[in-house]
């Protein structure tokens, strides 16, 4: 089968799997087996593209011409493949995790949950393999709408309010800014295709193109660049597997992926570097990195702290895209993968603590490490990856991002990155340290008879934690894909 046809299969497969899940709704075991089979098959499909793409093949496919000159089309290229690989692999792990979590936590409406989860993955695959801005936008919006029932899964007043914030910010930014920018691009360039070297160079004055870049960066609300970040903490009201795969990987990475893609294939990095608004946007990203880290400090709720940490880390990737030199792009792309593995581990651990000990606040996790050593051990490893320390994969992406700032001569930005790493060192490692070493305050609630979470959940978080270490030793696949993106 050709590469492009495989991409079409990758988009269709989760939808088919989702329909099977709906049909099997009455038999939980069969339903979850269907999800597992679908996710594994999806990963194999995406994996099979790796060989040809590493050999330099790029292939496209037009599904349908929507209006003359604008198509719904798929394209397999290295950056999209990187994102698809990460998302599809982590879907398998998350499915395993969900089986333990959803049952252990006695969640309702699990069939609906697995169905929308599968459709969301399909939308993420569509975004990853999109051949033009229109297709990317279409899947971006589908992803927003399909994740809404997941965010509001519990159906409570709190969930409803969070859903409003979620939908409000994501739809507002995408319709008011991103769609405007896309149609404007179409009008200026006569096309919305992703092309090597970009399509906008020389099509309008630098001022207009600079304004367009601003519209794109803020219009992709899923990248959570401040001040359009509030939806991400709001989304934490969802069940933990949703926070883990969608709001640490699929949804947010669709955002930063879109910005990388726009920087490389719509503007072209040579153009981005020269635009008058780029320096301002770089500092907006840097400010997001620092401010989100500082806010993370103030959060005692573990998932909220992780959400702000994600906001901060996403802006690393935005920063890489806007540095617009090869190191920045390589670092940004690799950070999509490295952050994904690290952060999903942290969310898995947070969910495991919730299921096993019914705790959500960091201050009350004292001493839990002794009864849940695997969970907090994995949390520690995942934290290392987010901070960017060896022996975890995050070290590589931060290394390249640092090189990117140096190449751009932005020592100030480098300093910001370092400060942020130090901040994350403190706010993340506080959790395992408290769990393993701190003694409960004298009159506090004492944890007794607590065991690890159900075994599928523990297995899942051990796999992702091991993967972060594995990626430190072998970052090559991702690194090579990114080299292809920057044409080296």
């Amino acid at each position: 089968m050709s590469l492009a046809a495989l991409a079409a299969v990758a988009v269709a497969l989760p939808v088919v799997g989702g329909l099977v899940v709906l049909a099997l709704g009455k038999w939980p075991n069969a339903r979850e087996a269907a999800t597992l089979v679908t996710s594994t098959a999806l990963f194999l499909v995406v994996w099979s593209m790796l060989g040809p793409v590493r050999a330099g093949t790029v292939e496209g496919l037009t599904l349908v011409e929507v209006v003359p000159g604008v198509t719904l089309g798929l394209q397999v290229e290295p950056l999209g493949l990187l994102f698809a690989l990460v998302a599809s692999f982590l879907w398998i792990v998350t499915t395993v995790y969900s089986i333990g979590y959803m049952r252990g936590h006695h969640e309702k409406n699990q069939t609906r949950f697995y169905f929308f989860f599968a459709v969301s993955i399909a939308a993420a695959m569509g975004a990853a393999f999109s051949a033009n801005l229109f297709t990317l936008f279409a899947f971006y919006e589908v992803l927003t709408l399909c994740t809404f029932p997941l965010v509001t899964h519990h159906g409570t007043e709190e969930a409803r309010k969070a859903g409003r914030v979620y939908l409000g910010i994501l739809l507002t930014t995408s319709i008011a800014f991103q769609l405007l920018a896309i149609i404007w691009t179409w009008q200026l360039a006569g096309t919305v295709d992703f092309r090597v070297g970009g399509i906008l160079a020389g099509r309008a004055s630098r001022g207009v193109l600079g304004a367009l870049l601003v519209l794109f960066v803020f219009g992709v609300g899923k990248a959570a660049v401040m001040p359009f970040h509030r939806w991400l903490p709001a989304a934490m009201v969802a069940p933990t597997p949703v926070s883990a795969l969608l709001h640490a990987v699929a949804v947010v990475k669709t955002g930063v992926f879109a910005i990388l893609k726009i920087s490389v294939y719509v503007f072209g990095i040579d153009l981005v570097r020269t635009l008058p608004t780029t320096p301002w946007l770089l500092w907006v990203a840097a400010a997001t990195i620092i401010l989100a880290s500082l806010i993370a400090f103030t959060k005692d709720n573990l998932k909220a702290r992780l959400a702000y940490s994600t906001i901060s880390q996403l802006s690393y990737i935005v920063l890489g895209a806007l540095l617009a030199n090869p190191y920045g792009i390589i670092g940004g792309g690799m950070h999509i993968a490295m952050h994904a593995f690290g952060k999903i581990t942290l969310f898995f651990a947070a969910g495991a603590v919730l299921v096993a000990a019914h705790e959500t606040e960091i201050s009350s996790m004292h001493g839990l490490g002794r009864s849940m050593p695997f969970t907090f051990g994995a949390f520690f490893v995942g934290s290392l990856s987010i901070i960017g320390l060896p022996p975890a994969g995050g070290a590589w992406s931060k290394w390249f991002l640092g090189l990117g700032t140096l190449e751009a001569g932005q020592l100030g930005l480098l300093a910001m990155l370092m400060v942020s790493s130090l901040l994350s060192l403190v706010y993340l490692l506080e959790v395992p340290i408290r769990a393993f070493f701190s003694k409960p305050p004298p009159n506090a609630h004492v944890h007794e008879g607590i065991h690890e979470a159900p075994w599928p959940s523990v297995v899942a978080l051990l796999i992702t934690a091991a993967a972060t270490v594995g990626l430190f030793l072998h970052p090559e696949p991702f690194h090579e894909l990114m080299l292809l993106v920057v044409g080296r």
Partner: protein
Amino acid sequence: MISENLPVLQVVVPLLMAPVAVLVRRPRWSWLVATAAAFWAFAVAVTLLSRVLAHGAIDYEIGGWPAPWGIAYRIDEVNAFVLVIVSTIAAVVLPYAKKSVEREVEEDRLPLFYTALTLCMTGLLGITVTGDVFNVFVFLEISSLSAYALIALGQDRRALTASYQYLIMGSIGATFIVIGIGLMYVMTGTLNMADLAQRLPGVAASRTIPVAFGFLAVGISLKLALFPLHLWLPNAYASAPSTVTAFIASTATKVAVYMLLRFFFTIFGAAFSFDVMHLDRILMPLALVAIITMSLSAIYQRNAKRLLAYSSVAQIGYMVLGISFASVFGVAAGILHLFNHALMKGALFMAMGCVMYRVGSTRVDAMSGLGRTMPFTMAAFVLGGFSLIGVPLTVGFISKWYLVRAALEQGMWPVAVVVLIGSLLAVIYVWKVVEVAYFRPAPEDHGIQEAPLAMLIPTWILVLANLWFGIDAKLTSGVAIRAAQTLLGVGR
């Protein structure tokens, strides 16, 4: 023979079926007659459109009398497309009507109801097909009078005042239009559209023609419910039987927009209308105000049908906005939105009809828990709502895509921003209903079931059309662009 005379058969057959519908006396038979008329109209309209697309405009002389004396019909891309819109909606709404009106209209009035509905469709088709301005007025009266009767058949007594209000406003509009036509006739001595287009430039310098222009502009704006002449619309849509609302909301204002296009582009000519009379300077601000204020009003409605009615006034703003650009992309966006909006509002009002059928009310508060009890109806509403918002892969997106492009093309980016803000306001009013239906638990002892299939299937046909023409819009956008080129008289 039938094939040659299709343009007139488009109107005459439904016109003759209308009295048959009342003469057969049994509601079931009346319904069958009316449905047959709608299917006939649909088949003819599709044939005519494909013929126009393949061979160009069709001229037809009624009774073989040549143009200045007889009535001429002329079908080009513009009205062929509108014919398809009107007859498609009729063909989808009539199968749906049976169940819905059985519940909402008294049984002894049903034959009359189907007659009025058929007459209303006939009138709308007649306005669209004819090439004679007085004929336009005649058909306008046929469609309007039957519409007043249809609205008055609504369940509660407010329908009577709504119908009366529409009657007064509509009659003022029709009077203004006939005055405009009369003034043009005085100056040119012809009622044929093609002749008028030829002779008007010679007398345009007189004071009479601008006055005729003014009367027509106001009269047509009343009919199409352009802000601030929209006051009749929300009451009429909210009180009419569900079937009537679905039909009229998707067709009547669309045909009025068609009249706007025909009078100001074909008869007066774009140059006179926009360069001399500066029609755009009045249409564009009103359209923008309509988009914003009417969307805001929709947010504050408590009845879902009223909410959708206000949304319709806002959506009419989009169509008029596109037309006011007087560019190929702009006019095409307006025409495209005619079609697209008919699909989305048809689907939404039909979903509301399903709710009415089971719940007996379309108050937003009464819809709690319907996400569970009527999953297919509410899913139709959600998808129709997505289309209204303009989510990609729905027809609403295609309209916005062209409209924003048309605004940017002229460097009017603030106008583009207003269009997109209108979308965001649509999110708010659509979500208002969605939240109640999906997040509020159903009252305990209601026993509400899903709507009958006879209503769900037509509703879903329109919903799927919303998706189909949103994913593959080559046909609709191609026709719209050609229609815009015809109206503006620019090359192919």
